[in-house]
């Protein structure tokens, strides 16, 4: 009897400890949101919402704090990373999930996961010593090698493991009965993948891409090292619109990290406002990922 009540106390205690841990993470998120927002209030009040969000001149010396150029910078590198990274990630996920023999999987999967473990500053170094000199050879006036293209390529590699592993899970979750059904109808393996497996795993694959977007938006150090950090609005260097990606730029994250160490007063508050905008972007991206994942799991495989 005595032993039983001891076990019950332990059981209750564990329950409370777990409950507190769960609550704690919510509190931390809310606290971060609260303090960042609180520090940014001065900027919103004195500079004004539209002057921050919609103006593209950032001159802290003259009290001009428009971050539109950084919003565009962040979105441009993210789009660049998605365009370059998604085909590569999907190709890897399809290869891992559908084609590769077990031995190759055992080699390739940890290699892809390892990409997730490389510190972002190391990606930055790689970008500086390898990518930037190569891009610099593109013969366009004003091209320094640093800029959106270098940043997009570095970011594409950085989001690869996220997208690959989630897309592979989605592909593996497609029931084998779909594959055998398709093959038994005389479809080739590739037709089975493109016409049955990928459509059936679509929601999960899209969720993976969206999580990759979230990761891309938040990346800081590697971006600072290769993007050039210009506060000017990124523009094509010549009449060719593709040279937009050779333009230097700055991301929202980079703006904060580069200036926060010496900023004071309204300047500092404007950097917190930059953080709020970033926070809002990432919440939107994560919410849409959640929505897609939910939709994926609610698709019935058979009627009950």
């Amino acid at each position, binding site marked *: 009897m005595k032993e039983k009540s001891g076990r019950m106390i332990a059981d209750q205690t564990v329950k409370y400890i777990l409950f507190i841990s769960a609550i704690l993470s919510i509190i931390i998120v809310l606290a971060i949101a609260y303090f960042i927002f609180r520090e940014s209030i001065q900027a919103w009040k004195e500079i004004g919402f539209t002057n921050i969000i919609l103006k593209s001149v950032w001159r802290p010396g003259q009290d001009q704090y428009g971050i539109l150029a950084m919003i565009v910078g962040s979105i441009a590198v993210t789009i660049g990373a998605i365009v370059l990274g998604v085909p590569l990630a999907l190709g890897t996920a399809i290869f891992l999930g559908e084609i590769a023999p077990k031995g190759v999987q055992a080699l390739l999967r940890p290699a892809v996961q390892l990409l997730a473990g490389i510190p972002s500053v190391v990606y930055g170094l790689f970008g500086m010593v390898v990518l930037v000199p190569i891009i610099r050879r593109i013969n366009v006036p004003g091209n320094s090698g640093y800029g959106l293209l270098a940043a997009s390529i570095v970011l594409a590699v950085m989001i690869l493991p996220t997208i690959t592993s989630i897309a592979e899970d989605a592909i593996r979750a497609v*029931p084998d*009965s*779909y594959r*055998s*059904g*398709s*093959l*038994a*109808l*005389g*479809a*080739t393996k590739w*037709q089975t993948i493109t*016409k*049955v497996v990928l*459509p*059936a795993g679509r929601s999960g694959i899209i969720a993976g891409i969206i999580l990759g977007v979230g990761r891309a938006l938040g990346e800081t150090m590697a971006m600072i090292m290769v993007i050039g950090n210009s506060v000017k609005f990124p523009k094509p260097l010549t009449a060719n619109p593709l040279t937009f990606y050779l333009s230097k730029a700055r991301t929202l994250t980079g703006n904060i990290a580069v200036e926060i160490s010496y900023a004071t007063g309204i300047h500092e508050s404007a950097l917190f406002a930059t953080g709020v905008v970033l926070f809002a972007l990432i919440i939107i991206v994560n919410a849409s990922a959640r929505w897609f994942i939910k939709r994926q799991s609610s*698709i*019935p*495989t*058979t*009627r009950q």
Partner: protein
Amino acid sequence: MNTKLETIEFNLYYGDFHALKDISVKIPEKRVTALIGPSGSGKSTFLRTFNRMNDLISGVRTHGDVLIDNVDLFKIDPVALRQNIGMVFQKPNPFPKSIFENVAYGPRVTGLRDHKKLEEIVESSLRSAALWDEVKDDLAKSGLALSGGQQQRLCIARALAVQPTVILMDEPAASLDPIATQKIEDLIHTLSENYTIVIVTHNMQQAGRVSDYTAFFYTDDTRTGRLVEFDETKIIFTNPADKRTEDYITGRFG
């Protein structure tokens, strides 16, 4: 009567495990042939030999001959072979696509683009599978929204759309209720006018009702499947040559 499918001294191994031993059988054209026998006697494995679905399992080896229309089946490209030999699985497995797209899938993957033609094929296949009247107004509805029995008939329609000459059925009614089962059995009977049907079933009454010929598979402690007896269904059920067949059919084991 013509022989559609034939195996001669056919053996199959999963790695070191000898799953089927020396199976020789002639499956007649445009008749229903039932494969019966206890679990693990290799009926389903034998069935999947004909559309080479066993090729997808690593470690499977075979020897002996398998012929379709007197041609060596292993010399035919599996993709082409599977367009000639359709398959219906134990659990209905429609794709998460519309009813129309499920049936149009086979013709589409073989390169048919003409929408008018696809519509014709979808309608005639659904009619042959006795599903048209139930779904003709809902072709855009998901195949997964149908009942289990309807799903299975959709899978039959999907197989018919590729215009095969043989249909393999792996316990097609095992997951269905008695009324849905009845419909599938009626359908098998109708389809046998135009198709060679090979059906695996655990249900003796079903084998008796739907098939013209029956093959009895058996396995002993070695778990190697052997063909004990092949004959007209009425002979197998009333006057089997082998004691084991009689024991199985009368329910003394298995």
